[in-house]
């Protein structure tokens, strides 16, 4: 059951621009499903999907679950705590047991980079990466791309800056691949302690100062600063981080453009982003969340073998 996207969706690095555009285009008709009083279409009726979360997640897990349910799939949620995983079962044993239950798809989040590929190489079911370590979070980047496209009508030629903890961010890596493949200019901005080695060689501009990034960008995607980064000594204090790198209305006012503000959540208000910016007129943060469901419906549908041109029909013909 290899789809036009391949068997698995583990990351955007090795996808083609055409595949990425196909997902975004397929998401468009699925947006409407969530606006209906009865939010359900039969596209994945009879399919069994396991949401396997080895890391805490609220937004991503719920978004996937809504996407699955709105496509009429049968879903099971497995969280690391309270499962055999916490009893020391290895990832490969978990995989084999799932496989033995004859499932169709696994959505996996795992703290180890490469865990989704590891699983995908060992089971016949489709594997969707919902975040693996510091590697990739492809559906997050896809929903970011869709949100940018909605707001600006295009992606090509836009200047997008990822702000903050790029070193530890799978969202940043997936965004970087997706944006560059679709022709955007990409920059990163943050303290050098939170920049991965060799990032410049990936074709991105590095800004050491947020003021420079704001002067340059059309879109700022503000990454979450994990509070433990301070404990591990990457930054001296959250207070200083806000003062040096915080995205504030005062800083944004200096830009000649109205910059679109994005954040993958959950936000630390008053650390990486000021509340007045997060809640301001140029924020598309909640649009990102809405688009997340549609993008994940598109990914599930395409991986299950659905054809993009039939997505409208798959909705149950309700959109005409």
């Amino acid at each position, binding site marked *: 059951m290899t789809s036009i996207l391949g068997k698995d969706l583990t990351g955007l690095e090795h996808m083609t621009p055409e595949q990425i555009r196909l997902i975004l285009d397929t998401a468009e008709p699925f947006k409407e499903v969530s606006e209906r009083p009865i939010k359900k279409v039969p596209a994945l009726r009879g399919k069994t999907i396991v949401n396997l979360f080895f890391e805490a997640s609220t937004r991503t897990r719920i978004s996937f679950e809504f996407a699955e349910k709105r496509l009429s799939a049968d879903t099971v949620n497995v969280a690391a705590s309270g499962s055999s995983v916490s009893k020391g079962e290895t990832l490969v044993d978990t995989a084999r047991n799932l496989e033995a239950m004859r499932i169709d798809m696994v959505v996996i989040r795992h703290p180890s*980079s490469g865990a989704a590929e590891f699983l995908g190489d060992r089971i016949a079911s489709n594997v969707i990466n919902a975040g693996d370590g510091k590697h990739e979070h492809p559906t997050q980047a896809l929903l970011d791309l869709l949100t940018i496209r909605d707001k600006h009508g295009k992606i090509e030629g836009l200047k997008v800056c990822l702000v903050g903890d790029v070193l530890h961010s799978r969202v940043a890596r997936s965004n970087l691949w997706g944006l560059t493949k679709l022709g955007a200019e990409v920059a990163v901005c943050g303290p050098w302690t939170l920049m991965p080695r060799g990032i410049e060689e990936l074709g991105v501009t590095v800004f050491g100062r947020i003021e420079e990034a704001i002067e340059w960008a059309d879109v700022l995607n503000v990454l979450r600063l994990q509070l433990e980064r301070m404990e591990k000594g990457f930054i001296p204090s959250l207070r200083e981080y806000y003062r040096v790198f915080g995205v504030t209305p005062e800083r944004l006012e200096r830009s000649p453009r109205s910059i679109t503000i994005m954040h993958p959540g959950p936000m630390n208000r008053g650390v990486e982003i000021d509340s007045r910016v997060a809640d301001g007129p140029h924020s598309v943060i909640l649009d990102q969340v809405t688009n997340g469901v549609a993008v994940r419906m598109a990914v599930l549908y395409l991986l299950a073998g659905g054809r993009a041109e039939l997505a409208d029909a798959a909705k149950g013909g309700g959109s005409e």
Partner: protein
Amino acid sequence: MNASVPLLLQGGRVIDPSRDLDDALDVLIQDGKISAVGRGLGAPDGAAVRNVTGKVVAPGLVDLHVHLREPGNEDEETVASGARAAAAGGFTAICAMPNTDPVTDNQAAVGFIVRQSGRAGLARVHPIGAVSIGQKGERLAEFGEMVSAGAVAVSDDGKPVVASHLMRTALEYARTFGIPVADHCEDPSLASGGVMHEGLVATRLGLKGIPSAAEEIMVARDVLLSELTGGHVHLCHMSARGSVAIIREAKDRGIRVTAEVTPHHLTLTDYACEEYDTHAKMNPPLREAADVAALRGALKDGVIDCIASDHAPHAYDEKEAAFDDAPFGIVGLETAFAVAHTELVVGGVFTLPDLIRRMSTEPARVFHLPGGTLAPGAVADVVVLDAAAKWTVDPNAFHSKSHNTPFTGRALTGRAILTIVAGTIVHEL
């Protein structure tokens, strides 16, 4: 065949780097020693004769750095299975690191390795004792007793000797017994949590890197402490080009430093970690093409003294894990010569005598071991190599109990066809 029967190796290409010898000669072995090397040697009564025309006769290979898992993890490797794998790889002597469970940090534990080696009767297994009790980096182990029980060096390998004061004391105390201190050079505060080389590949894979500086800092420190104490420091498994520069300068200044490099650090880069291949996960990590080039150059001109395998067996299911969770290390005894020969000699970087010097004569000299020479009167530790043999790496055919190698399926040229320890044939293909 036992050592009481004389053995004549006839018509081979004899390469003995200890005497700069490379000629078509016969080698006669009697009473466990090299009896004669020359043209047209006659076979004494009752001697076994092997015609090795077209093959290479060399001093047996010597490996200063292997991990056997006995005691503690005998499912992964034992002294006997490691010695068997060594013999199959053309090694006549290997040095076993002390990070066993319990740690080989006292004379009884060292004596156990010596006895197990004797029972196996294959390649010689020389124990390396721990620098510190339990390899905890706190109190010196009893070097004197360990040396009298058979230890040839001390090391806390697997971990660095972190405290500079302890390293200083170890170098001074080891001088008393004429043994080197072998250090695993890694600044733990820089390397902590890292799983591969810090560079572009790690950035793309989202894996935590170990910067080259983590090694280079400790190399520089060890060089300075060697200069301070006059002790002999041996630097294990060098991986970074910066380390090479520091060693080069130290040797120019006459400091007593020696160094080794593994076949994999001479032939692979961090790109081997793509696809999250846990068989490319080792510590120190595989680094960049510029590092490989610097290591090759250093080995060629003697800044790095020798090749060592860092043979590190692990059970198959330990490597069947996410990259972060898999242990470091690969096996190497049965591929070391062929990988180095294929990449360096067939690849045109080294001559075969160069390679044998770096895998036999030099390692024997560095740790003051018997072997490494075919001089008459020396122990008859000899290997016969078929430099033209083509074979494909199949871990299922290994004598080692573990199969964790990144070279599976690799087509290689050259292998040992006859391994002789003290006049006794311990491996014949």
